C-alpha cells in the first residue's frame, strides 16, 4: 500500500513563501524558506513563526481517577494545577518510551494531550486500551498549531492578537478570537521565550497571516527548529527517544514521579536499582564538523556508542550532538571521537547541557 503523505492546513501558504518542502512523520512540511541558519538566527534574536500543525491533540473528558487515565501516563495528572501543563511519557511495560507528550489541565475533568505526529495513532489506540471510562476524542485532524518563538514573542503576541495575559512557563489560557477559541500555551521547543498557539483549522491561515504581516516575524522551517532544539539538548522522539529506551537512560528521570502508579513503573524502579545499560551524552566537536545521526562514538579506537542527532551550532561555532554510550565506559567520559566508519573521524568533548545558555526562555524570570 502506498504510504500517504499528509498536507498541513497551511500547505499552500508555505508554497507561496517558496518553502523547500520535505517529508517528516508522514507529513509534507516546510524544511526551510530561504536559509536554515538565517531562520535559526532570527528565532534567537527576534521572533520566528513555525507551522507545527502535524502534531496530535486529544481531549479527555470524564473522571480522571475512575477512568484509569492517571496510570496510563507518567505525569501526576491530579497534581497539575488548572491552567498548567506537564511534560511526561506514555511507557510500555518495560519502561520504554512509546511517546513523549505534554498534558494540559483544562479543568478537573478535562485534559488535553499533545503528542508527536508519528505516534498519534498508536498513542490514541493505547490510551483507549488503558482507560475504562470517560471519553477520549482525537481532535488532531481539526486542530492547527502555530509556534511563535523568540525574545520578541510576548510583544508580538500583544501586537498581533491583543493577547495581554502574562502567563508563566508551562501554563496556558483559552482565548476568544474571531469567534473561535484558541489555546495559547507558554511552551516551545527552542529555548527562547515563546508560545504554542492551538487553533481550529478553519482559522489557521488567518492567524498565520496576521503574524507574518508583522515586520519582526520571519517564517522558520523544520531544519531551523532542529538546530534550535538541539542547542538546548531537547530530545526528539525517534532519535533520542525510542520504545527501547527508558526515561532514565534518556536522562529524563527528573520528569518521573514515583509516588504514583503508571505503566512501566516496575521496570523503571528496577532500573533505578540495578543501573542502566547506556547513558545519553551531549558533545561538541573540536571543529565545525557535524556529528550526524548514525555516526559511531569512540573512546580512542573502541566503539562505545552512537550519535542520535547532530547539527552545526552557530553559537558555539562547532558541531554539536546527542547520543548514547555504554554505561560501562570510564565515567565521566570527556574526550571522544566521532566517525562514520569509513573515512570521517574527528574529536569531540562531552559537555553539560544546554549547549546554548543565553536563551530568553524565562526572560521575565517566570
Amino acid at each position, binding site marked *: 500500500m502506498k504510504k500517504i503523505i499528509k498536507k498541513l492546513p497551511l500547505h499552500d501558504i508555505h508554497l507561496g513563501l517558496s518553502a523547500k518542502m520535505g517529508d517528516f512523520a508522514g507529513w509534507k512540511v516546510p524544511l*526551510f524558506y530561504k*536559509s*536554515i*541558519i538565517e531562520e535559526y538566527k532570527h528565532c534567537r534574536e527576534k521572533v520566528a513563526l513555525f507551522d507545527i500543525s502535524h502534531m496530535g491533540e486529544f481531549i479527555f473528558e470524564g473522571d480522571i481517577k475512575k477512568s484509569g487515565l492517571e496510570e496510563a501516563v507518567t505525569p501526576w495528572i491530579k497534581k497539575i494545577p488548572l491552567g498548567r501543563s506537564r511534560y511526561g511519557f506514555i511507557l510500555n511495560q518495560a519502561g520504554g518510551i512509546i511517546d513523549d507528550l505534554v498534558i494540559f489541565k483544562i479543568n478537573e475533568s478535562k485534559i488535553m494531550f499533545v503528542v508527536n505526529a508519528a505516534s498519534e495513532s498508536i498513542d490514541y489506540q493505547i490510551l483507549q486500551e488503558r482507560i475504562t471510562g470517560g471519553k477520549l476524542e482525537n481532535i488532531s485532524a481539526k486542530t492547527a498549531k502555530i509556534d511563535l518563538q523568540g525574545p520578541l514573542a510576548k510583544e508580538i503576541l500583544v501586537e498581533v492578537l491583543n493577547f495581554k495575559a502574562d502567563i508563566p512557563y508551562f501554563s496556558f489560557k483559552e482565548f476568544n478570537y474571531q469567534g473561535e477559541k484558541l489555546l495559547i500555551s507558554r511552551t516551545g521547543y527552542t529555548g527562547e521565550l515563546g508560545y504554542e498557539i492551538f487553533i481550529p483549522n478553519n482559522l489557521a491561515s488567518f492567524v498565520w497571516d496576521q503574524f507574518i504581516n508583522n515586520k519582526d516575524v520571519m517564517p522558520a522551517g523544520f*531544519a531551523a527548529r532542529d538546530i534550535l532544539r538541539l542547542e538546548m539538548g531537547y530530545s526528539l522522539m525517534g532519535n533520542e527517544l525510542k520504545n527501547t529506551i527508558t526515561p532514565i537512560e534518556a536522562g529524563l528521570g527528573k520528569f518521573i514521579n514515583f509516588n504514583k502508579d503508571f505503566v512501566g513503573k516496575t521496570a523503571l524502579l528496577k532500573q533505578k536499582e540495578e543501573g542502566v545499560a547506556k547513558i545519553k551524552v551531549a558533545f561538541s566537536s573540536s571543529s565545525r*564538523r*557535524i556529528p550526524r545521526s548514525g555516526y559511531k562514538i569512540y573512546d580512542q579506537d573502541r566503539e562505545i556508542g552512537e550519535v542520535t542527532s547532530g547539527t*552545526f551550532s552557530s553559537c558555539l561555532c562547532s558541531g554539536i550532538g546527542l547520543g548514547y554510550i555504554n554505561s560501562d565506559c570510564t565515567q565521566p567520559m570527556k574526550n571522544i571521537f566521532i566517525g562514520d566508519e569509513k573515512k570521517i573521524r574527528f574529536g569531540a568533548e562531552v559537555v553539560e547541557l544546554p549547549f546554548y545558555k543565553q536563551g530568553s526562555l524565562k526572560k521575565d524570570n517566570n
Partner: protein
Amino acid sequence: MDTYYTKNHEWVKIEDNIATVGITEYAAAQLGDVVFIDLPEIGKECEQDKTLAEIESVKAASDIYAPLSGKVIESNAKLDDAPETINNSPESEGWIAKIELSNLDETKNLMDKEQYSKHLETL
C-alpha cells in the same frame, strides 16, 4: 581565461598552467548553508575525478572532486572561518583551491558553460 565545468558541479578557471577550482551556484544551492570545508593541503597531489576536499552543510557531508590533475599550490583560508562565503559567492570569492596542472589535455573531459547549462536542464 578559460572556464570549464564538471558533471559533479565543480567549476575550474585556467590561466596559463594554474587552475582555480570551486563549486557552482547549483551545487551551493543544493548543499544549503555550508558550515565546514576540509581544505586540501598545500602540496597535495590531486587526480582528476578523485576527492579534492570535503564539504559539510547543515544538510549533508559531501566530497568535492578535482576537475583536473596536478598539485595544490594554494587554498582559500578565508573559508576556514567563513565557509558561508561559498553560499554567498560560490563562483568568485568562494573559490576553494588553486592547482598547478600536470596535464592540460584533461580539459577535453570537461564541459564548457553552454554544455554545463544543458546538463543542468536534464536534472
